[in-house]
């Protein structure tokens, strides 16, 4: 008998259909990968299973959990099901836990709610469960608070809460998306182990096809609230039939065609020499405060037309390095030369002249624009760097021209940022960066928040702009897949230092530093995973 059986689940809010006749089932001990882009309805499906749909949503269809019909059940009945028969883990480890409750109490809470046992007994259960998810008693006593744990450890606590009552079904909604690759690999391993040990069903909701390929037994692809394709993981990845799934897969491994136009003999456009950025630590009563070295003696250089990747996990100092390069923070030592001029020492008009040559595109397509400014005004903001301000008519003409260059209609200029999608906003950010005709553009996780299809388009745009304008890029990211597809050279950063650098292909083929090796091994690699699936299949056939 299936753990979960969904028949013709439809859901609409007002007159807007969110889910259209979705049918799914999960067997005991099975991992179902539910993939799709934002707005495809994958998260809404999981909320419907828990009966947590928005109040005004109209739901039809049947949801059976362990054979028991739960669609249409009262909230009181569903409360008994949640936590006991179904556990869920959300994306954000920072907000999923209550910051003023100890981890022991948080795990025990679920136990006490459903079992009605004493606090002591519940805490004993909590202890056992935390041990199971890899948080041993000696290092993680029950009295720990969430803020004392790292992101990956918090996610383990969230998993412990979800599995405390050994539910038949576990839902992981983008549960590893916010984690670093090495942590992600560990959490996925943990989930696989728990499924194996408890024989529960797991729905792994993600946008990351590589994660699904290495974890799931079966894959379901959703688009616009519909289930477009479903099947065995190997079958899906080697022989997708639906055009949408095929496109999704193509976009995920998309590498834009780039013309190699790196000018090796020319002087470098960006040179960083011995850069140090320290933060003052906690003040001591006597003596000097401890200093934390976020960037420790970093040197790098970028040639005209070259695309360089800077990768590392969160906290490695890559963002601090980027800010120092952009003269948003003052380094304690070292120089940053943009076309031979030191940006760290420049002031006033000289600094403006250097800033014209180095611009930035940030990650968050929602946070990088002043919500009260029109797009034309936002793109024109960088005209502030010019010695002679263009007339309003001339400025507008150049803005419109730039918007067209990045693939937006000129009429976009009169609208506000919130009227655009994430991908369009990233185009606006690129237009803003390009308006002063810079030599280098720094991209700070610039495509990380985008869906794969949009990401592919933006990467194409960047490649096209680079070959047309001879631009150099500095890709600062944690995403090795993107770096592999679009960079010539790769720098790997760990604990404030560059531990390895070299031609991208060479680093991927033969990583020499142990950290790079660890990073590459932990990164879900779609091509490798599909290859492994195929090999395993041939093995069984033989």
């Amino acid at each position, binding site marked *: 008998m299936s753990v979960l059986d969904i028949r013709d689940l439809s859901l609409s809010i007002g007159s807007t259909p969110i889910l259209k006749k979705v049918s799914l089932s999960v067997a005991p001990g099975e991992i179902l990968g539910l993939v799709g882009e934002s707005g495809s309805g994958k998260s809404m499906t999981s909320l419907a299973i828990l009966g947590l749909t928005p109040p005004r949503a109209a739901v039809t269809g049947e949801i059976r959990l362990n054979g028991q019909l739960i669609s249409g059940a009262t909230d009181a009945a569903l409360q008994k099901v949640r936590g006991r028969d179904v556990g869920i883990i959300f994306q954000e480890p920072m907000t999923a836990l209550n910051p003023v409750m100890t981890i022991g109490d948080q795990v025990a809470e679920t136990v006490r709610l459903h079992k009605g046992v004493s606090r002591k007994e519940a805490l004993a259960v909590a202890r056992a469960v935390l041990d199971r998810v890899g948080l041993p008693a000696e290092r993680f006593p029950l009295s720990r608070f969430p803020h004392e744990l790292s992101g990956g450890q918090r996610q383990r606590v969230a998993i412990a809460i979800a599995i405390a009552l050994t539910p038949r079904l576990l839902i992981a909604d983008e549960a590893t998306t916010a984690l670093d690759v090495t942590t992600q690999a560990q959490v996925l391993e943990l989930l696989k182990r728990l499924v194996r040990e408890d024989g529960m069903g797991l729905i792994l909701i993600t946008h990351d096809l590589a994660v699904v390929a290495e974890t799931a037994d079966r894959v379901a692809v959703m688009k616009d609230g519909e289930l477009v394709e479903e099947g065995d993981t190997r079958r899906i990845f080697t022989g997708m039939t639906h055009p949408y799934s095929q496109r999704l897969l193509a976009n995920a491994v998309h590498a834009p065609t780039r013309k190699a136009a790196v000018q090796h003999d020319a002087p470098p456009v960006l040179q960083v020499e011995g850069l140090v950025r320290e933060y003052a630590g906690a003040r001591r009563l006597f003596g000097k405060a401890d200093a934390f070295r976020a960037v420790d003696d970093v040197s790098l250089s970028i040639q005209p037309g070259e695309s360089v990747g800077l990768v590392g996990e*969160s906290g490695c100092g890559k963002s601090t390095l980027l800010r120092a390069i952009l003269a948003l923070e003052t380094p304690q030592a070292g120089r940053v030369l943009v076309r031979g001029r030191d940006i760290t020492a420049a002031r006033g008009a000289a600094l403006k002249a250097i800033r014209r040559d180095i611009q930035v595109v*940030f990650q*968050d397509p929602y*946070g990088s624009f002043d*919500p*009260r400014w029109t797009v034309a005004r936002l793109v024109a903001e*960088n005209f502030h760097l010019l010695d002679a301000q263009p007339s309003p008519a001339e400025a507008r003409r150049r803005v419109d021209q730039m918007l067209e260059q990045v693939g937006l209609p000129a009429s976009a200029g009169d609208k506000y940022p919130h009227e655009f999608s994430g991908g369009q906003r990233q185009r606006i*950010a690129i237009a*803003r960066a390009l308006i002063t005709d810079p030599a280098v553009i720094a991209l700070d996780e610039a495509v990380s928040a985008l869906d794969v299809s949009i990401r592919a388009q933006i990467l194409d745009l960047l490649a096209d702009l680079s070959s047309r304008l001879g631009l150099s890029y500095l890709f600062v990211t944690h995403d090795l897949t993107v770096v592999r597809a679009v960079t010539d050279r790769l720098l790997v950063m760990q604990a404030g230092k560059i531990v390895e650098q070299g031609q991208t292909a060479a680093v991927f083929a033969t990583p020499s530093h142990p950290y790079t090796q660890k990073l590459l091994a932990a990164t879900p690699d779609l091509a490798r995973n599909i290859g492994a699936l195929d090999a395993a299949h041939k093995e069984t056939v033989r």
Partner: protein
Amino acid sequence: MTDAPAPIALAAKSRGPWPLSLVVGGALTVVVVLTALIAFVWTPYDVEAVDIAAKLAAPSSTHPFGTDHFGRDVLSMIMVGAQNSLAVALVAVGIGAGIGVPLGLTAAARGGWVDELVMRGNDLIFAFPALLLAVMITAVMGPGAINAIIAIGLFNIPVFTRVARGAAMGLWTREYILAARTAGKSKALISVQHILPNLMSLLVVQAAIQFAVGIVAEAGLSYVGLGAQPPMPSWGRMLAEAQTMIGFAPWLAVMPGLAIFITVLGLSLTGDGLRDLFDPRVRRER
């Protein structure tokens, strides 16, 4: 991994119905303001005309709010008193916002010792009870409407500094501020072009609340004789004078009391309503 704080009081995107508190509060405020404006050109009686024959008359058709112990028309006095109350509170809010907001923006933009200096100065003003501060000022400079304005205005400064600084600090970490900095803009220019417009809704709400606080403060100062001086009518002093006659002429206390009540209620509701209107999160929960 975006752990960004929710947007601070973004303009409401969906134009739903206006919050009820704003409609009611706005209506009350408009009535009070109109009353004050009408009093410039017309009042039922001259507020300074003494008519001993009609003294302590109960509310009637000739004197809707009654008369006081000099036979002056209470309605007329309340109408003119509204001018005084509103003017004092308005200018005091102006002083508070005019000095407090730039201070707060500067503290947030500069950080370090500037921030420290501004905020400790704030604490110093906050540490004095507002009324005591007003008494001190009027003791030094003498009673009068102008000095009441200065006292209340001074008390408003740290309120606006704190609100502006706190919200601005949150905005300074936004990527669009970083982008503006890579556009070579100075911190002062960014404060004016990006920070201030995004704080505006917050400041408008705070101004409405401080306005209401100012009305009460002015009434309090007048009550103890430190506000507007006779013969200029003022709500606070009317209350003080009514005190001894409350047994046989209750309207003398009830009418100015109601005027203060309605004005403060109107302004407070307006403040709440504006906050609901500007803050999409509160809107959704309603």
